[in-house]
């Protein structure tokens, strides 16, 4: 039996600010992980990644990151992706700061 596909989100950095962004189901780039489209099918994931990578004047370095379903939308599963949703741990900069405003 083949292994079940680990769900993914498409993520990248915004071209102008470098901020972490996520591709939503309605083709927007959101700054928030929980708004991302949770992709549970491998073929669809590849399609969405191609779609993202084509937006070369909006984002940089699109890739698929593992994620899981959560009560408010997709959540990261790896610590690196979790840090990307927040910002650095030594200063209250980045997304955590924006979220608090």
């Amino acid at each position: 039996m083949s292994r079940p596909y680990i769900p993914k989100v498409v993520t990248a950095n915004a071209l102008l600010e470098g901020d972490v962004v996520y591709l939503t189901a309605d083709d927007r780039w959101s700054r928030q992980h929980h708004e991302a489209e949770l992709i549970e099918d491998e073929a669809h994931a590849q399609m969405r990644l191609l779609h993202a990578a084509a937006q070369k004047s909006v984002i940089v370095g699109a890739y698929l990151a593992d994620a899981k379903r959560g009560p408010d939308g997709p959540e990261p599963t790896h610590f690196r992706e979790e840090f990307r949703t927040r910002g650095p741990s030594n200063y209250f900069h980045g997304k955590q700061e924006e979220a608090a405003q």
Partner: protein
Amino acid sequence: MYSYTDFDEAFVRSRVAQFSQQVERRIDGSLTEDEFKPLRLMNGLYLQLHAYMLRVAIPYGTINPHQMRQLAMIAETWDRGYGHFTTRQNIQFNWPKLPDVPAILSALADVEMHAIQTSGNCVRNVTADHFAGAAADEIEDPRPIAELLRQWSTDHPEFQFLPRKFKIAVTGSPNDRAVTKAHDIGLRMVRNGAGEPGFEVIVGGGLGRTPMIGRVVREFLPKAELLPYVEAILSVYNQLGRRDNKYKARIKILVHETGLDEITALIEQRFAEILPVWGGQNDALLAQIEAAFAPPAFREAATDGYDAFYNADPVFRSWADTNLAAHRHPDYAIVTISLKAHGATPGDATADQMRTMADLAERYGHSELRISHEQNVILPHVHKSDLPAVHATLAQAGLATANVGLISDIIACPGMDYCALATARSIPVAQQIATRFDELKLEHEIGPLKIKISGCINACGHHHVGHIGILGLDRAGVENYQITLGGDGTETAVVGEKTGPGFAYDEIVPAIERLIGAYLKVRAEPEETFLETYRRLGLAPFKAALYEAEGQQDAA
């Protein structure tokens, strides 16, 4: 101090103009990221985890107050009000926005600074002993040679596409503070039989995935032959370096695979070809540069005020004992300003702190500042009578931490708080260790100890040469920290030994505490340093302290 030539100025300005257009074309979509990436990297612009990062070169760690103030201005205008000094004597800005980068580069050019060759497979920023030109133990100031190398390597047509990046470090002292043995080329000033200064040439050192201590290819090289000799090394490397495999492309692998005798012969052969054509073309230039690096006019004044203050004020005394080093002029001292306040991010300085340091350098330090690879800032020439005033000002700016060379004076790379290549965080580990030992009030009792932390195998935090090295890894999706012991980055350089399995994020600080507990218990006398104890006893007592508790748990 050395000032750029018109050529440098024109070159840097034209690069800024060029890059401004490239940024414009990237933003309007006419350049793809694949096309743009090598161009931005050539200008020091990286894309990190949360934002872009701009790496600015501080050649051989030497910077003047005017430049330091400009860095403060940049930090405030286009970044988050601080800068991060790195182990390569560079400064990094962690939050620039792409459209602002041309303006930042232009502001840097205004003070003769740039970000050129801070990335890519070229000769990177040449680093030097941060006490250069001031240290009591120095033969000669090595910075004129570093400057000569900088001029020669900048935009050198033959060496812009080397098999891999190339790092050169130089020191003028027998006590190596520039980690020369862990560089692609290390140059250590020595005297020959006739008493003339020249260089011992070390090749093939490096940390990273395959740490290696450099090998001596030439025991004595006259200063005048330095440039053709370095060119010969690069030329051999450029031709034979392993371009087929990124992990084998550094010169250390070439030296290792070719063998010392053969690589030395190849270099000498190439050198013999180059030398006659070279002629004496740099002699005049070197003499000119040397003149520009002439020492400042040292002040003659009494130092008894300093002695009295030293005896009267314990806080000042503690700082003087740890943060001062011997100057070549008996009435002067070298001041190391610690950027390692307990719990702060190693190497970070706020814009205000940068300005304070610039003011102090101007007022009391012959307008000189240095950045150390240990992520501190140096005032290389301070008259002893001025030290109480310098200390008082530093204290007000949160810059008077008396911990240089102690357990909380930790090198930590940006790790997974910023770096896209990281496998784990390093900054919070450093913060927690420093805070913990400050609470324990143990660090002066522990004495000299270098902890160095890297957030991945690339080893920017020099963990291999830390007395205690910590390497952050990703083990099955969890941060895990591997410890090495006994590393040394000085003239007696060695790569540290792994202790065994790593520790989880919340176990690493207690593990370090156990290590230190073991050291305090087994050291022969309080004067025996951690490294000396380790060299005398080996891994065993430390391993026991690290893993014993675990074993007991298993048995239970």
